[in-house]
């Protein structure tokens, strides 16, 4: 673990070097919140009901606010770094180092995320509590929220990492990488709560990894589930982490066998 501290630090330094971007996000992130606020305000007024698909207007605002907070944990651009590493042959070179590429990548982005979590996620959470009627959840819901959020972070990273590994076969993966973000965003409930989806989709969604990235953690916080269901959902989330980790491992070994010898 100790050798990875340096990697976390270097990720943090990169984040500092891009400090302007971080400050700018403080201004830009609330804009999408403002857009959603007005959109749902007008829809609620126009429809003339108090609850839409299980959400009151206040809950809806909380949903998008938590969505914003969760977003600082669930992101990754590791596939772009990997694409370059693979293309220029750094990946194979890294195999000779005594550090594991997977953990190196993971900790690097963890370092990058650290600044965002401190200067963005936490402040927004507090802003939500003070200005947007965000209700302080019960400690048990918060506990589930936090655990689920950390797992969501790992899930998102794993999906990106697997996309990154496909660069061994495809060389260029710009297309996949571009498609990743909006598709996950939509399927995870980043644009609209999943309760608005057709029932059939909601059923399928339980067995896909995506809703565990945003919708489930947020719903835990908002207390949308009984304790029993929460345990079940968390278990499924853990299973997905293990499944994707195994998949990444298998892909890595295959790629290594296939390309290391060829000097890729």
């Amino acid at each position, binding site marked *: 673990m100790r050798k990875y501290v340096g990697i976390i630090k270097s990720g943090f330094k990169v984040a500092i070097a891009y400090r302007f971007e971080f400050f700018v996000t403080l201004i830009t992130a609330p804009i999408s919140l403002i857009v959603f606020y007005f959109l749902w305000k007008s829809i609620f007024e126009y*429809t003339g009901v108090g609850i839409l698909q299980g959400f009151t207007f206040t809950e809806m605002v909380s949903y998008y606010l938590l969505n914003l907070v969760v977003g600082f944990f669930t992101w990754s651009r590791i596939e772009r770094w990997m694409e370059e590493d693979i293309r220029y042959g750094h990946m194979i070179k890294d195999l000779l180092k005594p550090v594991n590429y997977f953990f190196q990548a993971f900790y690097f982005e963890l370092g990058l995320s650290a600044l965002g979590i401190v200067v963005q996620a936490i402040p927004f959470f507090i802003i939500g509590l003070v200005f947007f009627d965000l209700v302080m959840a019960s400690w048990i819901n918060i506990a589930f929220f936090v655990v689920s959020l950390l797992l969501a972070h790992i899930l998102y990273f794993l999906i990106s990492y697997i996309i990154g590994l496909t660069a061994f076969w495809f060389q260029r993966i710009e*297309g996949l990488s571009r498609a990743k973000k909006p598709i996950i965003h939509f399927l995870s409930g980043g644009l609209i709560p999943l309760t608005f989806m057709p029932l059939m989709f909601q059923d399928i969604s339980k067995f896909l990894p995506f809703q565990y990235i945003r919708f489930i953690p947020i719903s835990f916080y908002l207390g949308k589930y009984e304790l029993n269901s929460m345990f079940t959902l968390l278990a499924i989330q853990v299973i997905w982490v293990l499944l994707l980790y195994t998949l990444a491992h298998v892909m890595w070994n295959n790629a290594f066998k296939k390309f290391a010898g060829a000097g890729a």
Partner: protein
Amino acid sequence: MKRNFKLLWKSWALEISSHMAYKTNFAIKMLAFIIMDMIGPLVALLIYKNTAGIPGWTFEEFILFTGTLTLVFGFGHAAVIMMPARIIDDVRQGHFDKHLLRPFKSLTYFLFSSPDIDGVAEITVGLILVSWAFVKLGLTVFSWNFLIYIFLIIIGFIFQYAVMIMISALAFLFVKSWALFDVFFTLTNFARYPLTVYGGGITFFLTFMFPIAISASYPADALLNGISGFGILKIVLPVFLFLFVSVWFWNMAMKKYSSAGG
């Protein structure tokens, strides 16, 4: 002028042939953009299925709105979005000089040499959505309103160009960073829904200060409900004002770059 169009033509030829080198990636990328651009209408569908919808717009009308937006952003994407991207990258790596060694005025050069094939996917989706709405709403192209609609779409593109000039210029003046790019894309979020969603303050901001409502709200509204001469003037003038300020900033940025050397 002939040379400018030659530059535009050649730049597109180069853009297309460089994508042909990685055909699979290209196909996936185009598909990705089409999916991305379909997500907006999909969310709209979910909203209209579950609620009374967005005030003042039926679902078909909203698709016309979204289609127009995708079209205008698509034009911007295809023609000018690469401008700040190239500039920021090159300034960061110290390669910007090579552009100044081209025998063109800097803005002209970038306007005619920044194609991005990704925009074509967006334009395609935009055209499909608009056409679908045209059929559903029984609109016709043989009308005065349609001419105004086209005119406003062109103005919408000009605004895209102005914003790209502004981002590029500010990137030169203050930070060699992508941050301003993000600011722009976040501000475009306002344009994703019609002005009827917002209150007066934001409508004012989106019409006069950062006139991005020209991208879809105004053209779609003009097509559906007509617009007065004064109405056109009111929404077109701010765009040209914005363009004017952007060009002024750009010239200032070039002056600063040329005296500091990046």
